[in-house]
């Protein structure tokens, strides 16, 4: 084999694509997905009520689609086809409308996820301060645990770079050893790295602190 052929490959996307779904044909046996009929789509009462409460907040019920998807994701663990159909049924929209919306936003999962999530910021500031290694370490540490680890774009906390959001709780600055501590805290069901939580951090500006 020639030398050229043995070069490390340009990162091509596996099977030409990095997006699930691009290579999938539809299932011609399925019926078209129209607005679900309430008589045929049972929705858990508490979910229905919560979605209806969101819808009531806006002049146009469609505005509630993101809040409703958050609710459904919390209820079902992810935005499963069933979860989407339920939201569609309550909101009188097509499931496709909601799939289209959900897939636009990073926080919605159209594939199953673990019970816990860790977003490791790998954007510019965090990566200047070592986020890429942290992310790798976090992935390793989470292996075998009920945790989904994702590299995330800037989470708006570069002051504690490198940082992560653990089930919504911002923690940082993190060092490589914090990865396994985070997993331990999650497994133990306790507050994550309490001393590194952003919520307890004082403003950096000395002027803001003076009496």
């Amino acid at each position, binding site marked *: 084999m020639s030398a050229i052929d043995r070069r490390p490959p340009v990162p091509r996307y596996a099977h030409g694509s990095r997006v699930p779904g691009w290579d999938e044909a539809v299932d011609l046996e399925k019926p078209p997905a129209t607005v679900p009929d309430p008589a045929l789509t049972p929705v858990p009462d508490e979910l229905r009520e919560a979605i209806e409460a969101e819808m009531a907040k806006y002049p146009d019920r469609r505005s509630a689609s993101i809040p409703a998807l958050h609710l459904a994701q919390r209820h079902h663990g992810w935005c499963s086809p069933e979860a989407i159909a339920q939201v569609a049924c309550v909101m009188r929209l097509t499931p496709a409308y909601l799939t289209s919306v959900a897939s636009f936003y990073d926080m919605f999962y159209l594939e199953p996820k673990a019970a816990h999530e860790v977003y490791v910021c790998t954007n510019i500031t965090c990566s200047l301060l070592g986020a890429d290694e942290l992310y790798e370490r976090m992935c390793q540490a989470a292996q075998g645990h009920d945790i989904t680890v994702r590299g995330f774009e800037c989470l708006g906390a570069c*002051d504690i770079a490198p940082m992560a959001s653990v089930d919504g709780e911002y923690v940082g600055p993190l060092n490589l050893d914090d990865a396994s501590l985070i997993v331990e805290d999650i497994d133990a069901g306790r507050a994550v790295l309490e001393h590194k939580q952003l919520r307890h951090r004082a403003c950096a500006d000395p002027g803001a602190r003076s009496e």
Partner: protein
Amino acid sequence: MSRHLLFDRIDEPGLNTIGVYERRGGYSAMRKALQMPPEAIIEEIKQSAIRGRGGAGFQMGQKASFLPKGEMAKYLVCNADESEPGTFKDRELMQKSPHTLVEGIIITTYATGIHRAFIYIRGEYQLQADILDQAVAEARSAGYLGENILGSGHSLELVVHRGAGAYICGEETGLLDSLEGKRGNPRLKPPFPAIEGLYAGPTLVNNVETLGTVPTIINMGGAEYAKIGTQGSTGTKLISVSGDVQRPGNYEIELGMPSREIIYGLCGGPRDGRSVKMWFPGGSSSPVLLESDLDLAYDFDTMAKAGSMLGSGAIIVVDDSHTALEVMQKVVKFYAHESCGKCVPCREGTNWTLKMIERIEAGESTPMDLDILASAQSQIIGHCLCVLGDAMAMPVGSIVEKFRDELAEEIEAARERANSLAYATA
């Protein structure tokens, strides 16, 4: 020494509750404003000459006066999406003093005859959103929200709306689509939101910090406020400093402060032995400046004159331990990931640029490719539906321009590496 208007004793425990906030004089501006004719409030804001704190730096008073007068379905949307890399100032304000924002919103809606307002906060800010929800509930119980506020005849519904993770929803029209429950794709302009925005009604979109400053302006008077800062950039500004500095964080400064004083004085500069290689003065969308630019005054006009922008006031400092390629790659990856995909030059331009950089890293490029890289950037600028494409092309263009030799060397080095690896494994 700089003045503290928004960050004044912001760490005081309990300031996020209405009790402490009011004890410290909170909501007095609202009471004062509700006694004033609405036009007078707009006038004060105009006189303050405050420029938008979200990125574009458009004068708030002017924007508010574009809204049609009279009774109709008008909306105010507070942009709390704060997703520009390097920016985290709104977060601190909302978390620690949410009522400042609520008060600013009440005053602004009163001044513009708006009865429905939304705070669009990025979904990742769960803590801050919960705190805002709490603050809104407190304000409502106090009678500051709802029907006929304090007998003024002004009514206001305020809803905190959580996003779900998309940078483009910080762009005001993408935000509006998202708030309408759609994909957050930016809209064609014109029409501008002030004429046709949320639910096709006239809509005022302002940043958290901009709206949060309104109570201060009412309290001290617009003319007085305008005395702070420089002539073209009045007031104080919350800035977020991050990256290779010793004391990263949010600071409130008077606009016009020398940049060196911020980076070295307030933030302690890079670690010992390191020097500033480049810095983004206004978030990752701003063209980079160099060490030699540190003596420039930090205000809207000076930054623009230097070929960059003040943007959201987010300074990212990169020291000389990092390569220009590394920085560029992070910037490009971000915008390629966040492009909404609606328009061609942004979608394909960011995506192609990313592939070009991946090719450099793989050792498959030559320095000549930098010309293509640079020209692709200029092909993006000015051709997109919104300015997200430009937001990548400008910093990338500036890095290629300012670090061309270094990049050329890195390209050659990457090729060497790839070749030797290839021979080693052959």
